[in-house]
């Protein structure tokens, strides 16, 4: 049996750390600051698994019962 990878779990959606330019683009299209996005802690197991640092923005692709697939973002904060 392989080692447990939490990113494989059915409750955990797909995560991706966004590039600087992408964040800028996102910020413009949403008209909000990075800090206004929902947060994710640096100590979150997923942050550790994907290596996200405070200041990063992660793109989350969720399976949604209503929309099929929905994209959300979280801003990584210290803690």
């Amino acid at each position, binding site marked *: 049996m392989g080692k447990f990878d939490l990113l494989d779990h*059915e409750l955990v959606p797909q995560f991706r750390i966004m590039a600087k330019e992408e964040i800028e683009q996102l910020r413009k299209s949403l008209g909000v600051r990075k800090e206004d996005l929902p*947060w994710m*802690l640096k100590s*979150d197991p997923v942050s550790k698994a994907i290596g996200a640092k405070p200041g990063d923005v992660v793109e989350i692709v969720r399976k949604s019962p209503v929309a099929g*697939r929905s994209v959300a973002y*979280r801003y990584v904060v210290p*803690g």
Partner: protein
Amino acid sequence: MSEEPSEKAETKEETETETETKAKAKAKAKAKASASTKAKSEGKKPKKAKETGKEEPSKEAEPAQPLSDQPSPPKSRNEEILDSLLAKYSLPESLVVQLKDKTAGLDLTADQLSRIVEETNSAYIKALIEPGEAAGTVAAQSVGEPGTQMTLRTFHYAGVRELNVTLGLPRLIEIVDARRTPSTPTMTLYLDEEHRVSLEKAKEVVARIERIAVENIAKSIEYDMINSSFIVEIDAEVAEDKCLDLDFIAKSIEKLKVGKVSVEGNSIIISPETTAPEKIKRLRERILDLRLKGIKGIKRVVIQKEDNEYVLYTDGSNLAQVLGVKGIDTTRIYTNNISEIAEVLGIEAARNAIIREAFQVLDQQGLDVDIRHVILVADLMTSTGKIRQIGRHGVSGEKSSVLARAAFEVTVKHLLDAAAHGEEDALEGVTENVIVGQPVPLGTGIVELFMRFSKDGS
């Protein structure tokens, strides 16, 4: 059915080709080419041939065709056109799938398809929530009203399952209050390929996780006043069933470091160093509660068969430990302890778990609450990266406005604190403005003049 509509469609299609975008034209040209070849080969049925498109798997497709085309799910002509049309709009995936499903097999021209997509898009835009809509209030009402109809009792599963899980309003309150541990923690464990099909293998896994303490296998425990020692009589049958032998038990007890341990027949004799009645009493508890095997917190495991696989339900939850046990499908492991999920799988998983748990509670009671309301609650609870309860110590208690907090609970304390600290209220929220008698920032009232002093708005 006459062939006229099909012919009409075809001529229409032809006249349109000039005005269409390159991508569409290309897709269509491809489709047409195949359609015409098919029409030739199949003679009388041009419509049917076109409808099936070139790749759609159907009985009528020539045996050679599936081989020549790509093996992945084949795209019909409609689908191809839809794809090029949909690129313009940002429709949610579920709508796209529905569009494709409904149009599949229908004989539609590109123009008709594009109008369908346009119509869908405008209906979608109309259905979107408008800026200024009180989504939170609507969600609160939508969850709150059915909540009044929920039963207060926790009911027991009849028969086989033997596990009692809190349901109904108490459970919903537990979820929303973000309690550290639910009153009835339980896990659902799916097994890996090797263990899921046979009962024997499933039992092996149970043996690995079920917590066995001395009290579970002891027939009796007595304190012998004369020799000042404990006599623990082990139920040999039970012990054997749980794969434990006396020596192992004795050794485990020895690790408690309470005194000499010896085995005599079916009994284990422990001679503690102290004789103080108080300590003896406490010692008795410690011995009985000693974990011999299994995982801390997992009190009982029930095996159930669910469509060809064995699933384990546990009484008690310990996600972090159970993850390490061999034989468990770690991608589907589930617990109703949401804070455990947040700890081990992260905040997004916890969000999903909140939605799942809360929706399940409402669903079991036969209450038809739209899942989007539940999703909003979960989003709010997890927006800071930690699970916050909805209530005094969480969402409601962390509002920036003094008046809004005072309006919720413990009014005097908030007003007093605010006065002592010289707090100000910017009157930005709904509650504050209701209190002072101003128009609330909701609906049309949300529009305000807004100036940016720097270009980038930071």
